Each structure stands twice: as structure tokens, then as C-alpha cells.
């Protein structure tokens, strides 16, 4: 199994408050916060692209991790809101980062994109050495003109990144479980015309059941219990959902890292943005395990266990 050297992030400057959205969506700002725990989110500037945000998060990650760019053998990019249907933004990000002809893989796995990319990087590190994982979303391009209050308010823009390597580093990935199930694919989907379909009760019920289940499963598979868990870094979909996951796992709520109040739901980018902020203030804990987990449209879901080195 590979190691995680470090994380990085980029959030656009423009802050969009609940108050600003409430006016457009004909609802109350307090309702938005009550329903989701979100107080504000970021929107990219006009013309600011997924590629630009991804590159900024990557640079932040490379600098924080003190990795030599020449060592990067593969770039994996998760996004569902890139400007073109093809090509994906991977090659353009490689170009922008000055990584020559380094291969890139584009993944379109919506909110589980960070997690699936991390697991793919774990496998690829043996072949490619150092893998740069990036997840970036410009959800405002989908929801900025949307007046449906249930689908428009949660989303924001941003990018997260991490470095996965076969060389010993801060966190060692020790196990993972991934799943997909297409039976309810239409319960959360983004059409080509930018129509966002979301069956909230279905998504919440599935996520609230499946995420604790897969975390428990991967912990047990590696002979760990929740008492061994220092932190859980999950996709930031909804604070109320994160609380339900903590309760289902019988973990103290503060052990589930959350920054959703400031950034909203940035889809695939959220887990790596959260990981970057968690990692910045993470201290070595008597509990040796950190869990990364995500659930998203598809449905795709899973969990990764990592251990402090």
C-alpha cells in the first residue's frame, strides 16, 4: 500500500452567503443553515476554470508536501463540471503545471471522486511512483442560474489535491473498500443541459446507511474498531448527514472533520479540501487511524483507512 505525503486546496475568493442566496431562492437564510449547516460557499470568478482551480490546489499541495515536480509520474483528476465533454481537464492541468508529457487520467465520479481517485492512486503508485491526485469542481456553473431552492443552495466551487507515493510519508494507506450501485442513478444526476435532479430523501437515506456500513466494514477487515479512529474525513455534503454518520458509528461528533459551514458542498473536491484543512492541524494521536469516506451520485461510495506513520 502507498503513502500520502500531503494535501493542498484552492478556494475562489468570492464568498456567497446564505443571505445572498436566500433572496434569489425565495427562502430564509436560517432555513438553509438549519437544513445543511452551510453558512456560505465560494463561487469562482467569471472565466475562472476547473483547470485553473485544479492547478492552484496542485501547486499548494506540491509546495506543502515539498515534492519535486520531476518525480510526479501520474496525475489523476476528478471532476464532473469541466468546461468540455472531452477532453477532460487532466492534460491541460499537466501542461499548466509544467509536467511535460506526464500521463493524466480523468475521472467523473461526482462526490465520490476524491475517494475513488485516492484508491486508484494507491494502486498506481507501484507503477508510476509519485501520483498527484486533484479534485476540482465549478458547481456554480450548474447552480448559479438555478432557482430551485433544494438543489441550488448547497453547492460551491473549489479544488483539493494530495500526493500519493510509494516512498514512506506521513500517512500510510492500509485498506479500502469501494462500491457502486446504479439502481438509483436517477435519484441524483446532472444532465447535459445542467438540469440537476436530486431526490433528497433517497440520497440522505442511502448515504446515512451506506457510509457507516462501509467504514465499519473496512475497519473490521483490518481488525480495528472505532476506538482506534483519530479522525474521519468525509465528503462534505450536509452537516446533518455528517452528524448522523458520527452517531451511527458511535463516534464523538467532533471526530468527524467538517468545514461545510464555510465552503458548502464542493462535490468531488470536498473530501480533499477537508483533508487539507484537517491535515494542517492534525497532531499525532494515540488513536492511529484516519478514515476517508465519500458517497455520491451513481451511487458510488467507499472508505479508505490510513495510519499515521
Amino acid at each position: 500500500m502507498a503513502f500520502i505525503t500531503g494535501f493542498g486546496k484552492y478556494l475562489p475568493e468570492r464568498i456567497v452567503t446564505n443571505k445572498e442566496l436566500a433572496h434569489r431562492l425565495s427562502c430564509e437564510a436560517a432555513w438553509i443553515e438549519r437544513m445543511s449547516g452551510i453558512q456560505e460557499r465560494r463561487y469562482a470568478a467569471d472565466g475562472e476554470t476547473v483547470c485553473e482551480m485544479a492547478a492552484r490546489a496542485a501547486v499548494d499541495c506540491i509546495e506543502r508536501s515539498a515534492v519535486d515536480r520531476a518525480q510526479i509520474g501520474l496525475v489523476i483528476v476528478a471532476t464532473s463540471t469541466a468546461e468540455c465533454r472531452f477532453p477532460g481537464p487532466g492534460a491541460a492541468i499537466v501542461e499548466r503545471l509544467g509536467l511535460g508529457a506526464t500521463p493524466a487520467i480523468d475521472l467523473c465520479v461526482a462526490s465520490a471522486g476524491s475517494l475513488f481517485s485516492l484508491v486508484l492512486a494507491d494502486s498506481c503508485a507501484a507503477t508510476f511512483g509519485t501520483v498527484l491526485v486533484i479534485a476540482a469542481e465549478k458547481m456554480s456553473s450548474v447552480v448559479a442560474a438555478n432557482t430551485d431552492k433544494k438543489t441550488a443552495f448547497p453547492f460551491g466551487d473549489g479544488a483539493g489535491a494530495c500526493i500519493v507515493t510509494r516512498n514512506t510519508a506521513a500517512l500510510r494507506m492500509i485498506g479500502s473498500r469501494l462500491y457502486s450501485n446504479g439502481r438509483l442513478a436517477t435519484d441524483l444526476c446532472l444532465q447535459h443541459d445542467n438540469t440537476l435532479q436530486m431526490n433528497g430523501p433517497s440520497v440522505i437515506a442511502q448515504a446515512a446507511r451506506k457510509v457507516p456500513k462501509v467504514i465499519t466494514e473496512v475497519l473490521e477487515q483490518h481488525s480495528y474498531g472505532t476506538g482506534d479512529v483519530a479522525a474521519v474525513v468525509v465528503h462534505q455534503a450536509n452537516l446533518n448527514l455528517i452528524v448522523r454518520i458520527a452517531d451511527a458509528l458511535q463516534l464523538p461528533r467532533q471526530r468527524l472533520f467538517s468545514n461545510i459551514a464555510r465552503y458548502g458542498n464542493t462535490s468531488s473536491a470536498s473530501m480533499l479540501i477537508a483533508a487539507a484543512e484537517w491535515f494542517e492541524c492534525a497532531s499525532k494521536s494515540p488513536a492511529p487511524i484516519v478514515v476517508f469516506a465519500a458517497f455520491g451520485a451513481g451511487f458510488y461510495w467507499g472508505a479508505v483507512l490510513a495510519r499515521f506513520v
Partner: protein
Amino acid sequence: MSNPEADLMRRERIMQIIQKVAGRDISPRPDESLFKSGLVDSFALLDMLALLDSEMGVQTPDDDINPNTFDSGALIKAFLDRTAP
């Protein structure tokens, strides 16, 4: 369920569960939409499934969770009559 008394009791239990998950004293008509209308929030389905399990012993596998199946008192009763006659 052909026993009228048991039938009535089941309707009353369902109404109690709807009120619990709504967190307030509502009395929707049997055919009134719960989720689509926004009468209860997105987390209510999760709570409803938990109460159907703990109070009525009805377990719903993940693959059978569909808000349309539980979107009114009448639909919940039809589901229970099918799965726990």
C-alpha cells in the same frame, strides 16, 4: 390486513410515526404527500425507516428504499401490509 381493528391500530401507529419524524403535531390526510410536498424534510425518511424497524420490526433493505413507497400514510400502510401482513 382484513381485521378492521388491527387495520385501525396500524393506521394510528403510522400517524404516530409520521408525527415523530416530522417533529411536530401534524395530521396529514392518508393520501397527502409527505416528502414531495415538503411536509417533512429529507432526513424524515431515514428516521421513518428506523422507527418502522424499532417499533414495528419491519426492516427495509437499502435496495428497497424509495421515497415514493413512503410518501403518504396510505402508501406506508400498503408497504406494511405487503411486507408485514
